[in-house]
């Protein structure tokens, strides 16, 4: 697994990083810590305070591991930030050389564009960002990979998966399974229906998903939610560690997200959100 973590100087980035570190401790994923600054400093480089912040983030990730379990190269204070391509800076020093890669990069520019470009560049399976990033909605709809929007830390042990008529990818199911392990959570699947023909399709998919998760030793809870009741349903659902939804080309959520409806609703909830592809 390769994870891209988008970070800024907001306090929530530190919290996001602590959740991601748990995921890294479990998965030993290759990871890029991406800092985003809107513009260069007056001397034409990256603001030094931001470089310091990124260095702190790097150290915080490494401190999440016991020394004997560390899959990444250990950090030392002897490092430099080099411009590897125009507007893209990378921490050079002890960031490579472990079993797994941990890359620290800073990109200058528009957050949405820089995050999406970096995700393409590094071939990430998952983009992680905090719930107050302005760009979250655009990234959620435009990214090619799954996107995790981290909210406040919650320990409710339940993951809600909205299921619609869209295609399910193998990698999305694998991502849900990893999240269930990470949160030590039960999986609940809410099948979205609006008419009888859709309900029959959703039932078949639910049946298949139950079979899939049973094969992984997971017994998911299932339920049906009429699409016209989606809004009150989301408003009532505050007892989740994580809400997940598939965002394929024909998914209901892709359509609703782009018109801002679901995004606005989810923004107000406390649960983290995982958009699957």
């Amino acid at each position, binding site marked *: 697994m390769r994870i891209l973590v988008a970070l800024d100087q907001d306090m929530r980035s530190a919290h996001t990083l602590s959740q991601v570190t748990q995921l890294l401790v479990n998965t030993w994923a290759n990871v890029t810590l991406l800092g985003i600054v809107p513009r260069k400093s007056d001397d034409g480089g990256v603001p030094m305070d931001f470089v310091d912040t990124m260095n702190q983030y790097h150290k915080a990730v490494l401190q999440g591991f016991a020394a004997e379990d560390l899959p990444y190269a250990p950090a030392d204070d002897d490092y430099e930030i080099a411009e590897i391509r125009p507007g893209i800076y990378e921490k050079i020093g002890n960031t490579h050389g472990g079993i797994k890669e941990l890359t620290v990069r800073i990109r200058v520019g528009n957050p949405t564009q820089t995050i999406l470009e970096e995700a393409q560049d590094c071939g990430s399976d998952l983009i992680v960002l905090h719930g107050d990033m302005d760009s979250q909605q655009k990234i959620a709809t435009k990214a090619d990979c799954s996107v995790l929007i981290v909210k406040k830390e919650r320990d409710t042990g339940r993951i809600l998966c909205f299921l619609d008529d869209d295609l399910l990818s193998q990698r999305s199911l694998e991502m849900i399974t990893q999240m269930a392990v990470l949160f030590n959570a039960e999986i*609940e699947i*809410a099948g979205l229906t609006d008419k009888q023909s859709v309900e029959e399709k959703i*039932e*078949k998919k*639910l*049946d298949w998903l139950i079979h899939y998760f049973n094969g992984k030793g997971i*017994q998911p*809870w*299932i*339920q*049906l*939610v*009429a699409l016209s*009741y989606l809004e009150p*349903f989301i408003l*009532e659902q505050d*007892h989740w560690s994580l809400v997940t939804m598939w965002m394929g080309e024909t998914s209901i959520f892709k359509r609703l997200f782009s018109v801002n409806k679901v995004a606005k609703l989810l923004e107000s909830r406390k649960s983290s959100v995982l958009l699957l592809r």
Partner: protein
Amino acid sequence: MLKTAIAVDADLASRIAIRCACQLGRSIDMSVGTIHALEPGEEGHAIATGWVRQTWEDAVVRESMDQVTRLVKSEQAGCRMLEPPLFLPPENDRGDRIARHLRSNHCNLFVEGFLHRYKPDLFMEKIGSRFYRTLPCPTLMAQNVPPMSKGVLWLSQGKVTEKMMETYLGIFPNQAIELELLICRFGKNPSAAAKDSSSASGVEPAVSFFESAGGTIKNISTVEGSPSSMAALVRDHFLIVSSVPPQNSLMAQLLSKSPCSLLFLP
């Protein structure tokens, strides 16, 4: 031995019903029969009259029987005790035919699948049906199949009869599952928290009877609030036990919010 009948159609809810019954069957001495109430023309409208119509209806019925038989066979792989389906002939109301079958075969437990829905209309319709209003035997509405270790939650509004306790012990005689009793006092309180009330009035005689018959209740508590505020309390159990509440009553609203399987006692 507990004699169980599961209503099976060719759908996901029926698979859930079978899995739920088979899960019970792994820790309780029981037989697991399956029944399907045939409905002529259930696949659509008749396309003709007379001989053609009869032939068409026969084909529909055969197709339906085949689908149900295939479903039961596929589930038998994970549940050897599952018996092949028995088909109830297509006449009068489905619920009446099933009730008659349950009574004449002296079944102790009926199981049927129901996909849990956020919108409670179908649930209300079901519990308002003649079958549920005059339950011929304990009826398990299977909605999900969580592990039995999640225990049973008995919901009551303060009245639990010895007869209900006796019926419950007839199904779970060996304390195979942990039991909690929650007494619901419905009001407008927007936030509900369960309070320990081991000496709750109204339930002591039944509880004493239950305990003298060898049953153990892990916890008795009381909760005050609206059905919505209590929803979180009915989420995470293997089973919820209750009598059949009046359609659209506050207890019915609370039960409609539970994704757990519901065991209704007559």
